[in-house]
């Protein structure tokens, strides 16, 4: 370990650490501009200079790039240091008067006027904020490995540019340069030949972008960041690795792989939720064609305080608040042809809620709702909708919309008001589509795995619509929420509670009690053809080896899992050797019953 003194305080650091590292471990703040922990330091901006008083060649050295040495005595705030920093800031201000970071630093250093004239007339271009610190150049070259940015020229005429001033065909469009730039002077679009492809933020419906390292959504479990391998530079090119350098906990491990986890369980609850159907198939609504036509889920994110605009509701097309908004109900729902015949169940209520949220955001705005009929069956639901109508939060128009089209920067919503029998046209700023709910993709694969049936729309089937709405036909598999049918939150919560108690009811006992009417195998006559295995809908039949006392296998016969068998009798009917019978409904029992009746 190396011991040195900083501002009179002793500190120990490992060999190879810089003065800046040592100062940080003491909690001292030394201003930096061209420094980033993941990029090899260059000591170019000179703002981090500190004074070596003793222990090495005395003078000013850059803390970020100067190694700590045994016995060094460092001053971080001496007159000489502060004079140098002030001068550096004045010179940088003369070069880049528009750089807010420099302005702030200058203010913090008590600089009120600058003896140096501005080096060039400022046009307000972003690149004028560049202080030529070269952090982006070093990053792109040494960390990303792309070398898409370089310096052009030298001395005061130096510029950050691309090789030969051409748009760089080696730029990966990763935007790391813009991220590290201390003054916000970089627009990666200036360097990249193809448009910078931002990674859409899935949780915000792609309305904003995210970095390759991200936490999938707020309150995720576990609430930890993950690396998106498809977009990570490290996985794409083998370069970068900045996160590994920076992470103080050493938690980054590029060798980690996705893995299969096997668990033995007593019960399974399917709760895979829903998706909304893509409304762009209905060209008349213009979704996907006009940026201001959004789905209700997108609208939900737009008005959310944790959403892409931090809760500020703006038109995607121009960033203005929408003064007129139209909500269209039943987009795809209750539509026999080319849609979903079922009611999506929740749209009436959330649309009423959205109308209220809209009024909260845009006080002077006008909201319209096109509806077929309002289905507000639930506690206080009807009152809620009536309030929206009565308080004129939204104007409800009963009818369908035939077309949404653009006129100027407005969207014209043309529809029918069936109550007055007239055609209406509304010039809207934004149109919100209440698209139909559909089960999550992949539900069919899941249903096969669980051996649970699904209906024509893909929703999982319950065992009995009235008597066993939470169970499935497969014992131990239960349903909760929208995998079963479109549901709102209270209903989903209720079903989930029921499913949970059902599951607990199964696993809380040491023994499982069942209906006795299940299949049994006569092992003496079973010839092991396993025709029965194929017909069992519940996966209850498996192979069983019969062994003698020495452990030699005598025969392989069918075995019925008593916990899974539902007693349907399909196996008994299939069995050619008549080796399977359903308990309580054995042939001899049935014949005995018939004989008793005849007697």
């Amino acid at each position, binding site marked *: 370990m190396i011991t040195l003194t900083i501002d009179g305080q002793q500190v120990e650091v490992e060999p190879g650490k810089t003065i800046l590292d040592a100062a940080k471990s003491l909690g001292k703040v030394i201003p930096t501009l061209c420094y980033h922990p993941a990029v090899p330091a260059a000591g170019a901006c000179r703002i981090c200079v500190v004074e070596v008083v003793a222990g090495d060649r005395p003078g000013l050295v850059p803390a970020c790039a100067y190694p700590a040495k045994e016995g060094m005595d460092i001053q971080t705030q001496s007159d000489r240091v502060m004079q140098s920093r002030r*001068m550096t800031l004045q010179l940088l201000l003369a070069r880049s008067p528009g750089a807010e970071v420099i302005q702030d630093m200058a203010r913090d250093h008590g600089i009120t006027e600058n003896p140096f004239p501005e080096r060039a007339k400022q046009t307000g271009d972003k690149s004028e904020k560049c202080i030529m610190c070269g952090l982006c150049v070093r990053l792109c070259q040494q960390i990303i490995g792309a070398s898409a940015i370089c310096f052009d020229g030298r001395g005061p005429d130096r510029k950050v540019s691309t090789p030969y001033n051409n748009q760089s065909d080696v730029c990966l469009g990763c935007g790391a340069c813009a991220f590290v730039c201390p003054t916000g002077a970089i627009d990666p679009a200036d360097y990249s030949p193809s448009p910078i492809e931002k990674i859409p933020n899935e949780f915000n419906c792609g309305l904003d972008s995210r970095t390759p390292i991200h936490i999938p959504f707020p309150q995720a479990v576990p609430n930890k960041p993950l690396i998106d391998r498809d977009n990570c530079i490290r996985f794409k090119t083998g370069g970068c690795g900045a996160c590994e350098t920076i992470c103080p906990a050493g938690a980054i491990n590029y060798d980690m792989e996705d893995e299969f986890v096997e668990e033995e369980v007593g019960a399974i609850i399917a709760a895979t939720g829903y998706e909304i159907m893509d409304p762009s198939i209905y060209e008349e609504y213009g979704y996907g064609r006009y940026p201001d036509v959004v789905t209700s889920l997108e609208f939900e994110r737009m008005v959310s305080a944790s959403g892409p605009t931090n809760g500020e509701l703006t038109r995607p097309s121009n960033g203005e608040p929408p003064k007129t908004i139209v909500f269209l109900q039943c987009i795809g729902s209750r539509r026999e042809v080319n849609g979903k015949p079922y009611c999506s169940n929740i749209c009436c209520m959330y649309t009423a809620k959205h109308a209220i949220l809209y009024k909260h955001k845009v006080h002077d705005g006008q909201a319209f709702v096109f509806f077929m009929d309002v289905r507000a069956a639930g506690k206080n639901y009807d009152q809620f909708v009536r309030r929206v109508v009565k308080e004129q939060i939204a104007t409800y128009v009963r009818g369908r919309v035939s077309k949404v089209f653009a006129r100027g920067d407005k969207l014209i919503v043309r529809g029918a008001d069936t109550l007055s029998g007239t055609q209406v046209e509304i010039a809207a700023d934004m149109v919100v589509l209440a698209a139909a709910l559909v089960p999550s993709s992949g539900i069919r694969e899941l249903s096969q795995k669980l051996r649970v049936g699904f209906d024509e729309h893909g929703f999982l089937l319950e065992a009995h619509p009235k008597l066993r709405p939470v169970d499935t036909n497969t014992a131990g598999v239960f349903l909760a929420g929208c995998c079963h049918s479109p549901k709102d939150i209270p209903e989903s919560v209720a079903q989930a509670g029921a499913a949970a108690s059902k599951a607990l009811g199964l696993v809380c006992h040491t023994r499982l009690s069942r209906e006795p009417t299940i299949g049994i195998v006569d092992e003496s006559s079973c010839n092991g053809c396993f025709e029965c295995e194929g017909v069992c809908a519940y996966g209850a039949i498996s192979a069983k080896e019969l062994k003698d006392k020495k452990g030699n296998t005598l025969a392989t016969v069918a075995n019925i899992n008593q916990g899974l068998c539902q007693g349907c009798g399909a196996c008994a009917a299939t069995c050619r050797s008549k080796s399977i019978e359903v308990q309580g409904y054995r042939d001899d029992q049935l014949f005995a019953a018939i004989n008793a009746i005849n007697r």
Partner: protein
Amino acid sequence: MRTLRKNYSEAADQWEALQTSSVPVLYVGAATCGRAAGAGEVIERLQTEIRDRQIAAQVVEVGCLGLCCLEPLVVVHKPGSPQVCYGRVDTDRIVHILDRYVLGDDPCAEWALGTMTPGEVDSIGKFSEHPMMTGQVRHVLRNCGVIDPKDMSHYLARDGYRGFMKALELGPDKTLKEVKKAGLRGRGGAGFPTWQKWQFCRTASGEPKYVICNADEGDPGAFMDRSIMEGDPYSVLEGMAIGAYVIGAESGYIYVRGEYPLAIRNLSIAIEQSRALGLLGDNILDSGFSFDLEIVRGAGAFVCGEETALIASVQGDIGSPRQRPPYPAQAGLWGKPTNINNVETWSNVPAIILRGGKQFSGIGTKQSKGTKVFSLVGKVRNTGLVEVPMGTTMREIVYDIGGGPQKKRTFKAVQSGGPSGGCIPAPLLDLPIDFDKLQEAGAMMGSGGLIVMDDHTCMVDVAKYFLAFLVDESCGKCTACREGVAQMHNILVRICQGEGRDGDIELLEQLGTYVKDTSLCQLGGTAPNPVLSTLRYFRDEYEAHIHDKTCRAGVCKSLVRFAIDPDTCKGCGLCVRDCPTDAISGEKKEPHHIDADLCVQCGVCYEDCPFDAVLVE
């Protein structure tokens, strides 16, 4: 170990044959300086004459003797006569010399500078007693202008590579001790003890190690290294081989600026020839030591003379310096221990090893040993390369060797060390020149450029000139140098335009101290020196520019008005002839007059007037 005895004896024979040639031998100084003055045409003419007229004579192209103001130089060696050196030999003069001296008996004494070998011809004095040669000690330049730089036998005959062979016999330890005993300090500017630098690199961990020759001589008005490389390239190679042997390096690079094509050519030839003799390559002379060299051409950046920038450039990166430590001795080229010395330092080494460190340390001052080559330029009568022992005073160089200021001007100052150096004013003329004394005076040895300035030189303008150079040459990496020097230059431009303000001097000093303190590399660290040293000795000139809006030297156009003193003007008409705007009028032999409305203050008349009748108002 092989001794190359046969090669040496052959070389000695060839050299002897040349010295005792039965036909006249004409040595033409054909280094870049000579060629610039027309040596190429002289050689061409000479060869045509010899061929066409079937004259029995031999022409040998040699390097530079250092008397640049008298170029082209031709030395004629007639059998039985001493060598005679002629100056300012143009294509006409060479024909005269051929006719009158080579073919006749008239030694053309009016053009002769002196005899270079014992013997007398007419009344021609000795070359060594020529004013420009007296006081010089030719140690580094011993071969320049004497040998054919493309003929290795000449070098071998003059003890070439004997220092290297001695080093191989002595072993690295004793060789290093010899260098230490010599007290040789780096000639590139900083004056760091060479032996110590070698020692650092030698003991540093890491393989392989490298040696580099810094031949990126970039100071305006400095050309010592070029002359050495052009006139005696072998000595650089030999010095590097010795250094590499001590350090344990197997490969070396010579980083030459691309503006030195002749030096690159001569070095390449020397490398080829040395390889052919087995003095470079694997297992040199069966000693077990291997060493080879490569030339890297610089693309023209002053900052690449800084060692870390030079290394970056060799590696193919942008020539920008980096923060030290680590120093190149620890982590240099490709991150390996690297030793960098400049041309003159390397060139000093062979003789030190051959003749012993003691002989070398016998010359010079207590702290600075040996000789130093200076390029003496500017407003002095004799310009050229001079090699003097350390401790020689500035007066001796400027007045004795240089012949003092031109015309009847008064000496004002000498800029020492190029743009990074500083000026030494007249009162300090008796300062003995060595590394430390120059530093104390606020200048530096630098690589050895001496620019003489007289009373027609404006010191503010000089500072502005050097800063303009440094602004151009700053790599732009660190804020202090990139922005600071540019702002200093802006202030100087303003002052020279008559827009100086109160507080400018203080701001310059403040900025100068800041740039010196805060810059990343030594180029930036020394960049304010021209301003700080002129402020130190010529503050009154700055004040006159700012407060009185006058430039006494008559340089800063915005501050100058020229007038003709009717009492002194003889009406010769020289100024009328040269005035670009026809602003001067007057009858012959009558006092002339300058029309202030037409005058553009170019200063031609001021420089022209043989009677100093043009005055600065």
